[in-house]
């Protein structure tokens, strides 16, 4: 679209509108506000719920391979399908779902650039309350690609070695420890601050006012100015792993950095662990 490293992971509203009848293109909404889908969604779209479906409901973890297969089978997605994900808040949880689709090896998954808000801002784009019926499939996922994910022990090692870029994508107030989490959100931590050695690049700086991603030059400048070393691996984190998925997508797919991982434990884990170093 605009000289991103990978142009095949992002579609425009126009592209999607032109493929509304294409059976090989499946649309899935994943919004922060889980009431939005029922209020109205892009015709043909299925819904995945980030609170009840994309995470293990007992232990804190991403949905299992079997669980992912069951979810995609139920909404009739096949491994050969082109899947377009979209959601509110500039695709926060759509990006989280994109990360999961890649972890489980889905070949062709894409984000709708600008997400739900961009679609809604264009007067001729339809929304419906009718839920399309798709015949169930027998989705078989790949073994999880753990190279896309970081866990606490690695993050602690990276923080100590300073050999890996740690990118904190939360707001400035969260990074500096003024607040533990944005007001009113239930998932929080015991302490405020950031991982020692992390640089602050709030996710919101990667998008335009209409929710679409900034162009390649702006994105390169943004991370360069923040001190990101392009010759090193990168780990992104936020509060619960969704905003960091958004920045993970930018770094890995739009900027084309090879080794980028999402630390989905993020601040709710790190900021609650006894004895780990914290910077403010």
């Amino acid at each position, binding site marked *: 679209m605009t000289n991103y490293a990978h142009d095949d992971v992002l579609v425009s509203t126009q592209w999607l509108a032109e493929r509304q009848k294409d059976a090989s293109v499946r649309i899935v909404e994943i919004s*922060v*506000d889980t*009431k*939005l889908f029922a*209020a*109205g*969604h892009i015709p043909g779209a299925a819904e995945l719920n980030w609170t009840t479906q994309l995470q293990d409901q007992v232990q804190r973890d991403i949905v299992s391979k079997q669980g992912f297969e069951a979810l995609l089978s139920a909404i009739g997605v096949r491994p050969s399908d082109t899947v377009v994900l979209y959601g*509110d*808040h*500039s695709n926060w949880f759509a990006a989280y779902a994109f990360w999961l689709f890649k972890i489980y090896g889905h070949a062709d998954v894409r984000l709708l650039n600008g997400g*739900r*808000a*961009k679609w*809604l*801002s264009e007067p001729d784009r*339809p*929304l*419906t*309350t009718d839920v399309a019926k798709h015949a169930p499939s027998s989705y078989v996922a790949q073994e999880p690609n753990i190279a896309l994910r970081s866990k606490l022990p690695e993050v602690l090692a990276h923080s100590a070695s300073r050999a890996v870029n740690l990118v904190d994508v*939360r*707001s400035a107030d*969260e990074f500096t420890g003024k607040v533990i989490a*944005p*007001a*009113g*959100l239930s998932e929080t931590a015991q302490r405020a601050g950031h991982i020692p050695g992390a640089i602050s690049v*709030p996710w*919101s700086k990667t*998008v*335009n*006012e*209409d*929710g679409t991603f900034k162009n390649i030059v702006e994105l390169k400048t943004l991370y360069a100015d923040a001190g990101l070393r392009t010759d090193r691996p990168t780990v992104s984190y936020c509060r619960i792993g969704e*905003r960091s998925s958004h920045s993970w997508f930018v770094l890995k797919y739009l900027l084309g950095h090879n080794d980028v991982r999402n630390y989905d434990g993020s601040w709710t884990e790190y900021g609650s662990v006894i004895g780990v170093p914290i910077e403010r």
Partner: protein
Amino acid sequence: MDHQARVYDSVLDLLPTEENPSPLVRLNALAVPGSTLYAKLEWFNPFGSIKDRAAAEMVRQLQREGKLGRQADGSIRGIVEPTSGNTGISLAGIAAVQGFGMRAVVPSKVPAEKRVFLKLLGAKVDVVSDSLCPLPGTEDGTIGMAKTHARASADRYVMPNQYENLANVQAHINTTGPEIWRQSGGKVTHVFVSLGTCGTATGLSTYLKAKRAEIKVIAVQPSPGHDVPGLRNLSELGVSKLFAPELIDEILEIPHELAYRRAMDLARHEGLLAGPSSGLIYEGARRIAEREPVAFGVVICCDGAFKYAANLAAHLPDELAEAIE
């Protein structure tokens, strides 16, 4: 209609007009020497706030255009609107009388009392989290949810959209402005307002400055991080297309905590049960009156205290918390 006898065929006949204005009450104990301030009591409107004016005008416009109420296919189309509560309550009141549906999309920080009143009037209520970290766009949150309903269920809902609808400005050109002009005998020199949709500020200023260009329209904004429902800091005003800075003489930023304290002052010293936005606007008026003579100032008191009991108690714990423990 006989406004003297105050006997009406419908509660909608109580909607404010030049012949049936909301009251102007002079401030006495809280007066600033050398100035005269009047409070315009908008909670005397039938659904309890200044928003009755915009709601009525927007409904009239939609009905003129055939977009609201019974449609050609026999169905009845209602209203969906993003609201911090008052516009929704006004629309829900009118909807209850006229028999169309009303769906209000409110931010989660809206006081529980307002949500109850919306439901009491029969509205459907969607509560949307408004506490996510700052977003560059404006199509998320309450506006996004309301627009989604309006587009996905266009047969059931039309969205007046108070943030963009010029009827919201026209309401004040038609009613609030002429009321103040007549009530003051043309002597009004200052009007003090808050900024939300900006319909009041833009409409009042348009009308009054055409009458006499020297009339000052002063807007008051709460300091950032406030929780005064319905009001916006300038940093939040991108959402309103009705904001016309050229029509506002001065914008004062007031520490938001004073909204609640001054509301209590208005109650304790003037017997005025005004809401927190009125408290904030009064503080702005007081500051201007201490700086320069205000010969005839009108403090718009957007609504009453009734919908903010819990908020008032939370913000004034030393004085009020005991009452609800």
